[in-house]
C-alpha cells in the first residue's frame, strides 16, 4: 500500500478541487480501483459538505444591511474617479462561487459512480450514479426536504397531486428509524418521491418512481466493506424503489423490509 500513501496525501487537494487536471484524472483512475482511497475521499467529501451546512449559521439582521447601505451614501467623496468608467474590468465573483461547488458535486458523482462500478463492473451503474447524486445533492442543499414531518400521515398526502402515483409508508414506531421528510425528485424528467429517513446519525434516501426501463437496475450494489454507501432496489406494485445511504448494509436491508411490508 506504499502507492496509496501518496494518494492519501492528495485526498484533501482532490476534494477541495485543487489538483491540476492530469493529477485529477490519475487520482480518479486510482479511486476506481482502490476502495480504501475511495472510502477516505468520500468521507472527506461528506465532511466538507457537513462543515458547509454547519458553517452557514448566521443570518445578518436587516437593520445592519440598511446601515451598511447608508454608510455609502454618507461618504460622497469615496473613490473619487479612480476606477470610474472601467466596469468591464472587474471580475464577477458570483460564478466563481458556484463553479467551486459544481466541481465538488461533479467529483462526488464520479466518485460514487466509480465506487459502485468497482464493485459491480458489469452492472448498469448509470442509474445508480444518478440516484447517488440525487441523494448527495439533496443532503448538501440548505433545505434537503420540502415537507418536514415525522408523521407518515402528513408526508404521504403531501405528495398527492405532485407525483403521478401513490405509495404506502410503514409505521416506524418501535423501529430505530425516523421519517425526516420528503421532496419531489426528478429522474429523466419523471417526478417521483424522495423520502429521507434517519437512522442513528445517518440519513437514508428512499426514492420511489414509476417503474420504467430507465430506472431498471440490478437488485443491489454493495461496494465492499470499506465503502460507506449501500444501495438496494426493488419493484412492487408497478413502482421502483431505490434505497441508498451510508448506514450499514443491515440497517438498509431492514428499512427495505419495512417498506416492502407497508400497507
Amino acid at each position, binding site marked *: 500500500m506504499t502507492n496509496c500513501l501518496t494518494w*492519501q*496525501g492528495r*485526498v*484533501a*487537494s482532490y476534494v*477541495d478541487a*485543487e489538483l491540476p487536471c492530469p493529477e485529477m484524472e490519475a487520482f480518479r483512475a486510482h479511486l476506481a480501483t482502490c476502495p480504501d482511497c475511495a*472510502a*477516505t475521499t468520500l*468521507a*472527506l467529501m*461528506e*465532511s*466538507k*459538505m*457537513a*462543515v*458547509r*451546512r*454547519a*458553517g*452557514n*449559521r*448566521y*443570518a*445578518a*439582521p436587516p437593520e*445592519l*444591511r440598511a*446601515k*451598511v*447601505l447608508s*454608510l*455609502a451614501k454618507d*461618504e*460622497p467623496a*469615496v*473613490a*473619487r*474617479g*479612480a*476606477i*470610474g468608467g*472601467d*466596469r468591464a*474590468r*472587474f*471580475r464577477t*465573483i*458570483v460564478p*466563481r*462561487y458556484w463553479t*467551486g*461547488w459544481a466541481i*465538488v458535486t461533479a467529483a462526488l458523482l464520479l466518485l460514487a459512480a466509480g465506487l459502485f462500478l468497482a464493485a459491480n463492473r458489469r452492472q448498469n451503474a448509470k442509474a445508480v450514479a444518478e440516484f447517488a447524486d440525487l441523494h448527495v445533492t439533496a443532503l448538501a442543499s440548505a433545505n434537503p426536504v420540502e415537507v418536514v414531518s415525522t408523521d407518515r400521515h402528513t408526508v404521504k398526502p403531501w405528495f398527492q397531486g405532485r407525483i403521478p402515483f401513490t405509495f404506502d409508508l410503514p409505521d416506524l414506531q418501535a423501529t430505530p428509524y425516523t421519517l425526516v421528510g420528503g421532496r419531489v425528485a426528478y429522474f429523466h424528467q419523471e417526478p417521483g418521491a424522495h423520502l429521507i429517513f434517519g437512522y*442513528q*446519525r*445517518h440519513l437514508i434516501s428512499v426514492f420511489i418512481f414509476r417503474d420504467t426501463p430507465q430506472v431498471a437496475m440490478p437488485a443491489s450494489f454493495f461496494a465492499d466493506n*470499506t465503502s460507506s454507501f449501500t444501495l438496494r432496489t426493488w419493484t412492487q406494485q408497478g413502482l421502483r424503489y431505490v434505497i441508498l445511504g*451510508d448506514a450499514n448494509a443491515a440497517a438498509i436491508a431492514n428499512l427495505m423490509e419495512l417498506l416492502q411490508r407497508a400497507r
Partner: protein
Amino acid sequence: MKAETASYGEFERLAMPLFDSLYNFARWLAEDATEAEDLVQETFKKALHGFASFVPDSDFRAWMFRILRNTFLTSRTGLRARLTVELDPEDEETTPVTWETPESLALASATREALQAALDGLPVVYREAVLLCDVEEMKYQEIAQVLSVPVGTVMSRIARGRKLLRQMLAGERSVRSGSAWK
C-alpha cells in the same frame, strides 16, 4: 461627478452580494452578535474608503474578507486570538496529513449542532481557514490572500483544523482542554 457616481455604484454592486457571507464569517470570528455587527460595519467603511486602492482585475472577494479579517485582528477578541498564536507556534510545515476513516465518518454524520460546537471550539487560526475553504469555497490561493500567509500554510491549517474537528467529534479529546497547542 459622473465617474464618482459610477465607482460608488460599482462598490455597492460588488460588495453587497458579499454582505451575508461577510456577516456569517464575522459571527464565527467574533464573540457575539454586537461585535460581529461592528466588524461588518467597520469593514464596509474601510473598504469604501480604500476602494480607490483596490486593483481592478484582482480578487474583490478576497480583498473584502482580508479587510474584515484584519479588522478582527485589531479587535479585542482578535488580539487575544493573535496572542494565543504567538504563544503557541503551530509547527505548520511539519503537520503530517493522515486520515482515519472512522473519525472522518464521525464528522460527516455529526449533527449540525455538534459540528457547530466543534467549530466554535477550534482555535481561530484553524476555524477561519476551514470556514473559508468549506463554507466560502475559496481556492487555497484566495485564502492565502485573505490570511496573508503562503499557500502551504493555508493547506496545513485546513488539514490540521479538519483533523482537530474529527478528533473532537470522535470524542477522543477536547481541544478546549488546551491540548490543541501542545
